[in-house]
């Protein structure tokens, strides 16, 4: 019987603004055991009177030793996310426990095609997969379909553009639901089943699919993929990405 996953002190090393409402926290975590793309961590904050609270956040980067990255989206009225996005000071500690989750995980050694479908901040654990594929120089094809409200809400925008241009076998499709960038031929609106069908591989191909986002988005996309003939046992879902109050 293994012992409990320990709470580890994690120190803020760097804060990278991603959008007006989201930032990536780079944390130094001495003793971090490593993780797989797609896994998440529990974060615990304790006030000086002993009050503490916990949230779960997806890991945004692959295993880099004792450094982990969390992308946190500020939730209006949230107890934790505004503090993490705006107030946690460089060098200050939080506590971190993990990695957690052994199902919504991806490995660069997988030989099959990988379809990633993100809604909003659900892109965070999928970005860890895109980055892991890049760092491993993996050749198996990967497609990311990323649904987001406006161009201003796109997380990792510059890096995604670069990865999509430079990484062989990687396709990035960003679709906008409320406002598109000038010159975008696609009308704004939600992903339709027909559009998913055109962006995904045919259901006859062997594909492993990961869908992450708000509940309604995940249910819609996963249901559309099943209707398109995708094997429901090869669709892995996770609700919400960098949310959690």
């Amino acid at each position, binding site marked *: 019987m293994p012992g409990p996953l320990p709470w580890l002190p994690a120190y803020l090393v760097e804060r990278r603004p991603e959008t007006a409402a989201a930032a990536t926290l780079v944390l130094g975590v001495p003793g971090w055991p490593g993780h797989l793309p797609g896994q998440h961590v529990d974060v615990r904050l*304790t006030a000086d009177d002993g009050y503490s609270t916990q949230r779960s956040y997806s890991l945004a980067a692959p295993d880099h030793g004792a450094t982990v990255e969390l992308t946190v989206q500020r939730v209006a009225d949230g107890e934790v996310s505004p503090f993490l996005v705006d107030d946690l000071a460089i060098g200050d500690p939080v506590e971190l426990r993990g990695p957690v989750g052994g199902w919504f995980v991806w490995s660069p050694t997988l030989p099959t095609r990988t379809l990633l479908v993100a809604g909003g901040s659900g892109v965070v654990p999928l970005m860890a997969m895109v980055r892991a594929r890049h760092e491993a120089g993996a050749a198996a094809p990967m497609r990311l379909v990323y649904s987001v409200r406006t161009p201003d809400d796109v997380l990792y925008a510059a890096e995604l553009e670069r990865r999509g241009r430079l990484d062989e076998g990687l396709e990035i499709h960003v679709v906008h639901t409320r406002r598109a960038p000038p010159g975008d031929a696609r009308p704004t609106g939600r992903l339709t089943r027909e559009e998913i069908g055109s962006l995904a591989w045919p259901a006859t191909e062997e594909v492993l699919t990961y869908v992450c986002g708000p509940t309604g988005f995940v249910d819609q996309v996963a249901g559309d993929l099943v209707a398109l003939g995708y094997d429901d046992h090869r669709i892995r879902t996770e609700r919400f990405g960098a949310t959690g109050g």
Partner: protein
Amino acid sequence: MGIVTPGFRGRGRDSAPELPPGQYLTHDFPVLSAGPTPHVETDDWALTVTTEAGARSRWSWRDLLALPQETPTVDLHCVTKWSKLGTRWRGVSLDVLLEDVETAADFALVRCFDGYTTNLPLEDLLDGQAWVAHEYDGEPLARAHGGPARLLVPHLYLWKSAKWISGIELSDTDEPGFWEQLGYHDYGDPWREQRYAGD
């Protein structure tokens, strides 16, 4: 006490004293599932209980609705940290379903229409602690929340309350289910914060 994060105040110290450790209150009803939501028609729905001796008992949808119904109001605690208090359900107590089942088993493995499984001690299904629920808040249980019927065992973390339940296998041995094989706690008591293996 954990390491203090300078500047963190938090709130909610007195908002919900009945919450288990590490949980926060939500008024939504979040959905968590490992895969797509299955379509199970009530005509196709059935619950099968299999004993350690291989004896089977089966209830169709009509059989289930013909049994005595209960309307528990319970608190839900998800391992992902949210808790929802005072939820209203309607369903059949496992005490009723297992009343005439001959068994000396110690463990139960719950099976679902989507292939999901979860394990728990049989005694946690008995004595008014567990139901096969088919209504939530006065309405037929929505598919996303496990409709047409799910297990409801609210004194354990919510992953034990398996959605789209199709069967219960009784056994002398404890066989880990889906999340229990993936690092989550075998028992999952929220009040002892048994989230992950070893907690």
